[in-house]
């Protein structure tokens, strides 16, 4: 994230992925969309996040795409479906649907993955605050991001403690189901007690003050940020005008 791209203002990167998402939806066919994946991969290389990008992408997207092909091409019965064996058919229409659908999924999800890998949550929150989003909203986002890892840690501690107190976590489905409550119950109760106290702590830090908030963290827009935003808007306009004229 300390790369040049990592240090761009969040809204520049956001405008960029919005452009990509819009184009993937507007451009007909699927070649352009699949090219986007390669393009994002290239940018990831420049951002120094290529490996992270591929591993995140591979975890969820390929299986989904595979299933879409299986469903659309072989299982769903379309007008042009030809039976191959029992309930398995082949459909050219299904193939086209799969290609257009999966190419969009690939393009959009790869740009989202890239965005979150090269943008600090802290920067996103700062940018939201600066653009006038309510303090309550940014507060909730920031505390969620901070709380999740803590709760995961705490849940591990509780799980270990409960195991050592003899709660069975192996065995029949029923036994494992029953283990769930003693593991999550104490977590809920302790977090509820904690937020009760945190309300007071936050009020002591003037959370409810009506004043307009300032920020000690600062992120400045560079010239390049303006260039990127203008460039993205121009590309979109040119594309739309070109499509209309066609």
């Amino acid at each position, binding site marked *: 994230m300390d790369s040049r791209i990592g240090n761009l203002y969040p809204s520049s990167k956001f405008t960029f992925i919005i452009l990509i998402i819009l184009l993937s939806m507007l451009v007909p066919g699927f070649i352009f969309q699949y090219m986007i994946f390669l393009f994002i991969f290239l940018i990831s290389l420049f951002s120094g996040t290529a490996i992270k990008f591929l591993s995140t992408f591979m975890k*969820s*997207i390929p299986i*989904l795409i595979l299933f879409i092909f299986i*469903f659309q091409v072989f299982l*769903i019965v379309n007008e042009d479906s030809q039976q191959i064996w029992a309930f398995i058919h082949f459909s050219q229409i299904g193939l086209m649907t799969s290609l257009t659908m999966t190419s969009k*999924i690939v393009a959009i999800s790869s740009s989202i993955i890239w965005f979150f890998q090269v943008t600090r949550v802290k920067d996103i929150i700062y940018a939201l605050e600066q653009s006038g989003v309510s303090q309550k909203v940014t507060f909730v986002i920031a505390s969620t991001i901070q709380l999740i890892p803590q709760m995961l840690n705490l849940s591990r501690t509780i799980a270990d403690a409960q195991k050592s107190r003899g709660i069975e976590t192996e065995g029949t489905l029923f036994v494992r189901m029953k283990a769930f409550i003693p593991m999550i119950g104490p977590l809920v109760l302790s977090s509820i007690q904690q937020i*009760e106290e945190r309300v007071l702590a936050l009020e002591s830090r003037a959370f409810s003050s009506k004043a307009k908030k300032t920020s000690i963290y600062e992120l400045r827009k560079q010239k390049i940020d303006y260039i990127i935003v203008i460039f993205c808007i121009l590309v979109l306009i040119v594309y739309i005008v070109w499509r209309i004229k066609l």
Partner: protein
Amino acid sequence: MKRGIKHDFSLLALLLIPVGVSLNVVGYQLSTILKLPVFIDQIGTIMVSMIAGPWIGLLAGLLGNVVNGMLNPIAIGFSIVSVSVGLVSGYFSKWRFYTNIFGIIIACVLLTIVQAFSAAIVTVFLFGGVTGAGTDLITATFLATGRELWNSVVSTNLISGAVNTIINFGISWLIIRKVPDRFLIKLNYGAPYIKKEVNVNG
């Protein structure tokens, strides 16, 4: 309870959103650790909607999916499901469905339907009937028996939705029974779950 929507967003209620989201994540992790066949990943949303109302429930659902979406963008597509569950469950709490067994049954049935249809819409229109999870096999089976896509996806989601709702709601309900009265009294939607009789102007 005729108060403005703003009234729902006390600081305590806001702080329940991160807790709800984290509980969903922890629930999901525990489900994998315990190798459960269903993912208990909505307890946070349901619990928070029960004690803090529809809007907080909605936000907990939404934020949960957005946070998951940072690692798996598909989750963002399914936000609408958690959002509906949080919102609808919150209204059921507001209308005091959860205080008696008939209300609970009706609420669970309706929640299942809401969950199934919202999930089916996303699944069919965004992902061609697929979710990338184990339940796709059920949908595939329905398809193989010659049902249409929409029909198959809705059927799958009604089955998985019912199981999910019952388990997630059941656990949330059990846990809320254990939440101290002094906490519930501070929340706008906590009153139905208070065990003690409310005295004075509490």
